[in-house]
């Protein structure tokens, strides 16, 4: 059961984290958003697998879930807040 919870946490949290980091790179990777996005899509899977591995390596399942949730919250806050207050323009 613990393995199943960890797998689901890693699969969902890792996927969302990969997407968020790719979104951040598309905003800030350089002036050419199309090229940024092409590059950013390449590291979604490694981030996803890395997050999954960290969830399984963590001592406690809850600690892993909360850490992943926090990482996602930080990334999505930056993604949604900064364009809204016009610090970063649309890609």
């Amino acid at each position, binding site marked *: 059961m613990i393995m199943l919870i960890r797998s689901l946490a890693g699969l969902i949290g*890792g996927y969302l984290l990969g997407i968020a980091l790719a*979104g951040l790179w*598309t905003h800030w990777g350089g002036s050419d958003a199309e090229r940024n*996005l092409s590059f950013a*899509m390449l590291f979604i899977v*490694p981030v996803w*697998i890395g997050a999954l591995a960290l969830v399984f390596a963590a001592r406690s399942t809850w600690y892993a879930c909360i850490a992943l949730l926090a990482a996602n919250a930080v990334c999505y806050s930056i993604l949604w807040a900064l364009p809204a207050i016009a610090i970063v323009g649309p890609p």
Partner: protein
Amino acid sequence: MKPDTLRRLHSAHTWAGVSTSWILFIAFFAGSITVFSPEVHEWVVPQARRASAPTAQDVAALVAAVTQAHPPARAEFDISLGHSSQPIASWYSAGERVSAQLADGVLVPPGRTESALSEFILELHYTLGLPGEAGMYLVGIACVIYGLALVAGLLIYVRNLIGDLFAWRAGRNLKQFWRDAHTMVGVLSLPFHITFAYTGAMFTIFVLMAAGLDRFALQGRAAPLIEHAFEVAPAPEPGGEAATPLHPAVLIAAAKRVAPSLRPTFFSYRHYGDANGTVQIYGQVSGALIQQGSIVLNSASGALIGASVPGRMHPANAASGTMLALHYGRFGGFVTRWMYFGLGLAGAFLFYSGALLWIESRRRRQAGQPRLHRSMARLTVGLCIGSCLGLAVTFAANQLPVAWFATDLGVRVVYGVFWLGSVIFAWCRPPIRAAIELLYATAAFALALPILNAIASGDHLLRSAAEGHWAVFWFDMTALAVGMSFLLLARAVARRARAGERNSVWAAPAEAPANSESEHRC
């Protein structure tokens, strides 16, 4: 690394491997066959063996016939050089895709030139043959979990990598033997597995990643960027001014000025006869990692509009082309493809041996193994060996004089019946008996393939060699080698049943009477 962390990583490696072993076994076994897709096609479709390649004049004649007989098709139609001596045109008519080729100057439905079986094996590789998108996403998620198994496995074994690599202890301890074999194959083929896990996930769940980026991260701005990144040239708008299109030979020459090694395989015409009309010429290029490319030209003037060939590619196309080349071994020659074939089979062995290890390492000392372990053994045998048997039978059925077996539906039905039949058979039999019988059946069908081919087409081994049909010759030889391997495996498993640990689920039921009551389910 702390022992506690190592223990957790070991659990992760086991969990990830066991939970995806069946999916990845089928994907790897089918994938190793897709490496030789052109050769499989030639074996499956005997008509393709003696077909000469179509010429630019054949393309011109077909284009003229289609555009005169079906004027609405001028807006959009394709010409495939395919595997026949005559090219095939296809276009949409009343929402339906229509295909035709020329026979004595008349448009007729194309003969049997495409192989439903080689298409199906490719589909089996990335969707397991499951309908819709579900199979593709399932394989994609399995690739991500497989990535976890690789990362965890690497972290566990990194300290003793070299020591473990050469510690193949073949002796009385069978569990140790399987563990050493599993580690050795895993370590030796690690770069290949990393490439497969990564590129496999990228291909199968690209849509999920693009949709996630579009919806969650970039609020609808990712889709147009992605679409534009993969576009070789913008879609043409008809200008309304008539212009005579150039002869295909002239267009090919114009494309070759951009990519001299381009070998055209496919033409995609848009707004034929219009001054703004285009033709996108797809083909194979040599001397580069990415061996496929396309060039968009104005069909009336031959002017270059866009190109996606090595050296002139958008990063998105370059990345996907590189991944495709690395995933299917398309960058190399025959030796590379044989290496990929061997590594693919070794990968299938890795997943099968991983599942066996899981069952063996949980074996109780007393007779009567838990229901979970027996079920796991039955499913491993049925799903994995069943998929090998299903493919062997589908190849055999393809050579029978019943055309339906070679159709898309026929191939799916034959494979599905034998695969699911094997799962039910393995569920009803003691696992070891089912394994032996399914292995013998697979061996028999694989060994029969060269004979069936010789009967159906007359191309026996000696004739194929004498006439230089090396694809057919090597296919037959490989079928014999694979058949012999399955035969030897069946004999080895039978020996294991007689001489192995009595309490194992792999023991012959006669030697483990305590199990026998619950072994026969049907």
